[in-house]
C-alpha cells in the first residue's frame, strides 16, 4: 500500500493525480476462506481488520450485498462518546473511543476524529440525578466526564437557550474527549487497511443462505456463488434477524427505521455535540457546516430506510426549543437507516447455537461510536473463543436475565 501524506498529494498533483492506486482491491471470491464476515459496515470491516492485525488471520472475506459502508455506517450522525452507565458498556465504548483517538494514524487514512466534546443536557431534576450518577460511575470506569452547570453549558455552546421557557437547562454531563468522526472515512479506512493485509472485500455479494453440517457452519451461498469457511461472523445490523434465520436461530431484537436530517451548511457556530434527552433531540455541526440532527425511531418494524415524517417534526421542534436560531435554517435532506434494537438496547457479541458462527449486532441507534472497540472484541471472540470486552454481551444474558440496560442514563438513543 502506498502511504497517504501531503507529499504523496504533491507528487500526484504534478501528474494530474493520474497515479493514485485503488484504495481497496475488488477481487472475485475464492472457494474457501478461514473466516467469512457478512456485512462490510464499520463493525464487519473492523472485525476483519483486528482479526488481521491482532491475531494474524488474513485468509478472510468480507461479503457485502451492496457497497461497503452503505448501511448504517454511512447513515448515522457520527456521535462518539463513552459516558455510559453500566460497566460492560463503558468498557467497550471507551475502548472504541480510545482507539478512535489514533485511528487515522493506525489506518493511514484521515477519519477526522474530532474530540470536540459531547454534552448531555439535564433539563429535569431526574436527569440531574441520573447524570451525576453517571459521572460517579464513569470516574470508576476510567471514563473522563464531569457534571457541569448551565453557565458552563452556555460558554461551551453559545447558541443554546438555557433559559427555557419550557425546559430550562439545569446542567449537563460533559465528556470533553467525545466528539465525531467522518463516517464514510471510517469504513473506507478500514477497508483499505484490510485489503492491504490481503483480506478480500467482496461487494455486490449478498449472502442468501448459510450452510451447515450437523451443528457446525460450513459456508454461505451468495449471489456470487458458494463460499466455504471454518468460521462465520454475522455483522449486518438491521438485517441480523434475516441472517440469524438463515443460520437457524432467532434473535431477541427488532428492526426499525431511525431517521436523521441535515440543514444547509452555514459558517461555524457550534463547536460541541449537544444531546437533549428531555425534549428528544441532538445536534452537532459537521465540518462542512451542516447542522447534523438525529431524528426519532419509528414505532413499527420495517425495512424501508425511510421513516415517518412526524418524527422529523418532533425532533425539529425539540431542537428549535434548544437552539432557537435554527428556526431560520432549512432542512436540506432527511434519511433513514434500519437499526436492530434489542430488549435491553445493548448489543450482542456472541457465539450462536450454530458452532463456528458468531454474531455482532444489536447496536441499534448507537453503534457508530463502538466500531473500533466492537471490531476488537469480536475479532478476539472469533479468534480465541472469548473476549473480556464481549463477555457481558453474549446471547445467554437474555436467558439469564442479565440485562445491560442503559435507558436510565440516556433516554435518547444515538
Amino acid at each position, binding site marked *: 500500500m502506498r502511504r*497517504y*501524506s501531503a507529499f504523496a498529494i*504533491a507528487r500526484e*498533483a504534478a501528474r*494530474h*493525480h493520474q497515479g*493514485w492506486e*485503488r*484504495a481497496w482491491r475488488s477481487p472475485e471470491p475464492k472457494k474457501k476462506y478461514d473466516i467469512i464476515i457478512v456485512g462490510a459496515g464499520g463493525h464487519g470491516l473492523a472485525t476483519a481488520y483486528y482479526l488481521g492485525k491482532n491475531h494474524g488471520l488474513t485468509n478472510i472475506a468480507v461479503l457485502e450485498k451492496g457497497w461497503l*459502508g452503505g448501511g448504517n455506517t*454511512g447513515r448515522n450522525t457520527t456521535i462518539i462518546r463513552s459516558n455510559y452507565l453500566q*460497566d460492560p458498556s463503558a*468498557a467497550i465504548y471507551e*475502548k472504541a473511543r480510545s482507539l478512535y483517538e489514533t485511528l*487515522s*494514524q493506525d489506518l493511514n*487514512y*484521515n477519519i477526522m476524529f*474530532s474530540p470536540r466534546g459531547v454534552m448531555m443536557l439535564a433539563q*429535569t431534576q431526574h436527569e440531574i*440525578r441520573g447524570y451525576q*450518577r*453517571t*459521572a*460517579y460511575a464513569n*470516574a*470508576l*470506569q*476510567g471514563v473522563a466526564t464531569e457534571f457541569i452547570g448551565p453557565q458552563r453549558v452556555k460558554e461551551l455552546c453559545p*447558541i443554546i437557550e438555557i433559559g427555557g*421557557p*419550557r425546559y430550562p437547562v439545569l446542567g449537563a454531563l460533559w465528556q470533553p474527549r467525545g466528539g465525531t468522526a467522518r463516517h*464514510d472515512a471510517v469504513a*473506507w479506512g478500514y477497508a483499505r487497511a484490510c485489503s492491504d493485509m490481503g483480506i478480500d472485500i467482496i*461487494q455486490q455479494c449478498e449472502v442468501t443462505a448459510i450452510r451447515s453440517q450437523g451443528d457446525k457452519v460450513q459456508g454461505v451461498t451468495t449471489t456470487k456463488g458458494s463460499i466455504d469457511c471454518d468460521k462465520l461472523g454475522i455483522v449486518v445490523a438491521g438485517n441480523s434477524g434475516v441472517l440469524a434465520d438463515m443460520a437457524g436461530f432467532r434473535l431477541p431484537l427488532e428492526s426499525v427505521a431511525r431517521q436523521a436530517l441535515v440543514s*444547509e*451548511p*452555514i459558517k*461555524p*457556530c457550534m463547536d460541541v455535540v449537544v444531546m437533549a434527552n428531555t425534549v428528544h433531540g441532538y445536534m452537532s455541526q459537521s465540518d*462542512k*457546516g451542516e447542522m447534523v440532527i438525529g431524528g426519532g425511531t419509528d414505532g413499527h418494524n420495517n425495512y*424501508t430506510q*425511510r421513516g*415517518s*415524517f412526524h418524527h422529523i417534526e418532533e425532533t*425539529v*421542534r425539540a431542537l*428549535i426549543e434548544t437552539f432557537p*436560531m435554527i*428556526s*431560520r*435554517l*432549512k*432542512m*436540506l*435532506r*432527511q434519511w433513514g437507516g434500519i437499526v436492530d434494537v434489542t430488549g435491553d438496547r445493548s448489543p450482542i457479541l456472541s457465539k450462536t447455537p450454530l458452532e463456528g458462527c458468531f454474531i455482532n449486532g444489536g447496536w441499534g441507534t448507537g453503534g457508530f461510536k463502538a466500531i473500533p472497540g466492537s471490531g476488537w472484541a469480536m475479532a478476539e471472540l472469533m479468534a480465541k473463543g472469548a473476549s*473480556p470486552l464481549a463477555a457481558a454481551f453474549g446471547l445467554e444474558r437474555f436467558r439469564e*436475565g442479565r440485562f445491560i440496560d442503559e435507558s436510565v442514563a440516556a433516554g435518547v438513543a444515538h
Partner: protein
Amino acid sequence: MSTRLATGGRFLDRNQPRVFTFNGTDLSGFAGDTLASALLANGRSMVGRSFKYHRPRGIVASGAEEPNALVNLGQGAAFEPNQRATTTEIFAGLKAESQNHWPSLEFDIGALNNLVSRFLPAGFYYKTFIHPRAAWKHVFEPIIRHSAGLGRAPKERDADRYEHFYHFTDVLVIGGGVAGLQAARAAAADGGRVLLIEQSAQWGGRAPVDGGQIDGKDPEVWINDALEELEKAPNVTIRRRTMGSGVYDHGYVLGYERIADHTPGDTRPRHRLWRIRAARVITATGAIERPLSFAGNDIPGVMLASAMRDYVVNYAVSPGDRTVVVTNNDDAYRTAIALKNAGLDVPVILDARPQAEGDLPRAARDLGIRIETGRAIARVKGRKSVTGVAICAQAGEGAVLEEIACDAVAMSGGWSPVVHLWSHCGGKLIWDEAGAFFRPDPDRAPISHDGQPFVATAGAASGQMTLAETLKDADSAGKVASRALGLAAGRKGAPKASQPQEGPITPVWMMPQGAGPALRQKMWLDYQNDVKVSDVQLAAREGYESVEHTKRYTTLGMATDQGKLSNINGLAVLSGALQNDIPAVGTTTFRPPYTPISMGAIAGEARGDIFQPIRRTPIHDWHDDNGAEWEPVGQWRRPYTYRRAGESTHDAVMREVKNTRQHLGLLDASTLGKIIVKGPDAGRFLDMIYTNMMSTLKPGRCRYGLMCSENGFLIDDGVVARIDDDTFLCHTTTGGAERIHGHMEEWLQTEWWDWKVYTANITEQLAQIAVVGPNARKILEALGGMDVSADALPFMAWADGQIGGFDARIYRISFSGELSYEVAVPASQGRALWDRLIETGQEFGVMPYGTEALHIMRAEKGFIMIGDETDGTVIPQDLGLNWAISKKKDDYLGKRAQARSHMTDPDRWKLVGLETTDGSVLPDGAYARGSGTNENGQKTVIGRVTSTYYSPTLDKGIAMGLVLNGPDRMGEVINFPALDGSATPARIVSPVFYDPEGEKQNV
C-alpha cells in the same frame, strides 16, 4: 454585461419599481422580478463564491435548481442564510448579501484555495492532515470549518410565525405547468377532489417561453383559460408558491407554502406546511436542463440555455450582449432565436452533433446565425466574467480552432425529468436511450397500502419532451387517477398541440470528447461544491466505484441544490470511467425535501411556551401565587417547594417537612395517575398486571401494588382501590400515567383481547389533595361531614361521602408515614376545596408542601420512588418488596422473568439504608468502591446511592442505596469515593429511618 431590456418581460410590472440592497448598494428592480433577475438586470453577474475553492460564481439557472446564487437574506430576527436568489421574489426593502467570502465578494482570501486547487483534489483531506495527531482538532479542522460553510449563522430568535395545515384530497397534482394544469382538469372532470400546487409564483411553467400552440392558441392564452376553469370548479383547490416537498408512505405528501416570504411583516405566517393525504399523486414537475462539461463552464456568464431564455422572455433581462450558444440538442436553438429576437448578438451556435437539421436550427439559420456542427468549447476565457470562448472539434482533444469574444455562454446538455417526488417513496427509474435521461418506470411505481401504485407522472416529468405528448400524457394521467378512484373519467380528449419538429439529441458528457487531464480539471460538474470531471474520474480510479461512494468521496450532488444540475452528468462521467453503462451505474437515492424547507415550517406553531402542552392541576394558580418553585414532571408542573420571602430553597423544604410532621401539610396530588379498570375480568386482569393479588381486595379497601415489565423489572407502583365488584381505581406515578395506561391497553389489545375489561385514564377528571400530619383528622372533622375516624376509615380504606359540603372520595393512605388522607373531588371543585383546607387549616398549623418535602418524608420512611430506587434493572425482590409479590398466583407479568438465574442469584444489589459516619449527606448517585478491578480494568463497585437527603426530622443525612448483599451486611461501613479522590464512609442500616413501627400513620 447583463442588463435590462427596454421592452418585454412577461412577469414584470414596470409600473411598480422595487428598490432593494445587495452588498450594501441600492439597486432597483420591478414587481415580478426574482432577486436573480433583478441582480442580472443591474449587471451583477457574479453573486457568490463556491464552497471549496472560493471561485467566483454567477447565476446559472432560473429556478429551484440554481446551485450558485445563494445569499444571506434579511437582518436580525428575519435573517436567513443560503436563500436562493432565483426563487426569491423581490420586495421593497429587500436586503441581500453574497456569501462565503472574506473580506469581500470581489477580493476573497479564501480564493487562495483556488490557486492551490491542484493539491486539493477530491478527498484530499482523507489522505493528509494525519500527522501530528493533535493537529487535526486544533489546526486543520478549524481551518477547514472556517473556509467551508456557506451563509452566516442566524443569531436571533426567529420573529416569524409558521403554521401547519391538513388537507385531504382524491388527487394531488404537483406542478403547475401545462401538464399539471391538464392533469388537474382531467382528474377533476368527474367531480373528484383535486389539489393543484405550483412552487413558483407563476402558472404555466416553460410552455409560454418555449413556444408552440395549444388548441390553436398561444400557450399563455390556453393556460389562462385552463386556470379560469380550475378556479371555478368547486372540487378543485389551487395554490401557487407551494412546493411538493416530499412524498411519504401511503399517499402522505408534504407541501411547503411560502406565504409571506415576499411580503415580510404583513402579519401572515411566513410559511405553511401542508400535510396532505392524497389517494393519488400526479407529479407534473417538468424537467431540468443539464449543463455541458467544458473547461471553464463555471465562470460567471455561463448559463443554462433555457434559463437564459427565461430571463430574456419573462424578465426582459439580457444576460450579455454577445452570447455563444453551445449544445448537443435542438432545444438550445430556441435560446439563440429568443436572444436574436430581443436584438442581442449570437456570434455562433456550437453544436456538438455532426449535423443540425431540425426546424429550429433551420429557423436560426434563417435569422442569419452562424452554426458550427461537430464543434465544442475547448475553454471559456475570463475569470470573474466571460470574455470569450476557444472553439475546438468535439471529436478531438481540444486543439483550438478559433477564439470568439463574447460575454455570455448559453449551454444545453439535454434535459432530465424531475423524478425526485416519484422516487421518494420507492418509484423506480429506467434509462431512456433516445432522450439520454432517466425517467420514471411506470411499471415500478410507488405502492400504497392497497398494493396499488399511488404516484404517477405527467408531461416532461414522465420524459415526454414535446408539447403534444406532454399534454396527452398529462390528460391520461389525470383520467387514470380519476378512474382508479372509481370515478368515470371525463370524455374530453387531450388538447391538440403543435411545435417545431426537433432532431435527436446526441449525449455529450465531456467537451471535447478526448480532453486531457488539464482540461478535465477545469470542467465543473457540481458548481457549489467544486466537483470536477477529474474528481469523479479520480474516485473511479481509486476504487470508489459505486455511485454512492463517488458521491461521498467527491461530494458530488451533496450541496444545497442536491445535485439537480450535476448528478446525471456526474454519473455519466463515472460510467465512462468505469466503462460501464449508465443504467448499470445507477443513481443515488432521492430524499426529501425537493428543495430545502425551513425548520420553522417543520416545527409550526409549537414553540416557546406552547412547544409542548403544559398540564396544570386545578390548583396550579394558587401555587403560582404562593411562591411555588416549579419542577417539570412529564408535561406537568409541580411545586418543588413554596419559598417564602427571606427563605432559601433549602430552608423552605426543611420548614415544610417539619411542619407536616408536627402539624399539618397539604400536597396537591392531582398529578398522580388515576386509571379506572372496569369489567367482569378486571380483577383477573389486575392480577396479571400487578405482582400482588388484586382480585381478592374487598370493595372499600386499598392495596399498594407493584407493576413489572415482562422482563421482570419494576416499572411503576401505586395504590389500588376497589370501588365495587367490577371496578378498580389504579393510582400510578405522575410520570407513569400515560405509559401505564398504554401498557395496560397493549396487553388487553394484543394478548387478552377476549377479556371483558375496559380502562380509562381519568387523571384529569379529579383533583386530589393529600392532607397529612398529626392534625389531619382534626381538620377534616372541622370541615364536617363524613366520618373519618380510625374506626370508620381505618388505614388502607377509602370511603365516598361529603366533606365540608364537597362530594369527595377519601383514601386513608400515606406516603409520608404520618396520619394521612387523600381527598379526591371533581376537578372543578379542586381549587375550592384547597382554599377551604387552607382557611380551615389555619388553626391547625396548615402549610402546603412540595415535591422535595414529599421525597424527604418518603425516604425517611424507607419508601421507594420509581426512577430513584428503580432504573429498569431492579426487580421488586431487590427492594425488599417480596411481601408485595403474591405467591398464590399462577402468573403475573414478570413472574417467569424473575425466575431466571441471574434474577434469583442470591448475590444481588439490594436495598438498604445508608448513614454517613459524620451525619453529612452522601452525594447523589455515588458508587461504593469494592476492592480491585474487573477484567476490563474498571474499579470494582459494590453498591450505589439511590436517594439521599438531609433529614430535618433526624437532623442528619440519610440515604437509600442498593448494595451487594446489602441486607446481610447491616452495620458494615463502605466507602463512596467522591470525584475529587476523597471518599465518604457510610454505614449500612435499615432503610426505615422514621417510625419503623408505623405508630404515626395507623392512629
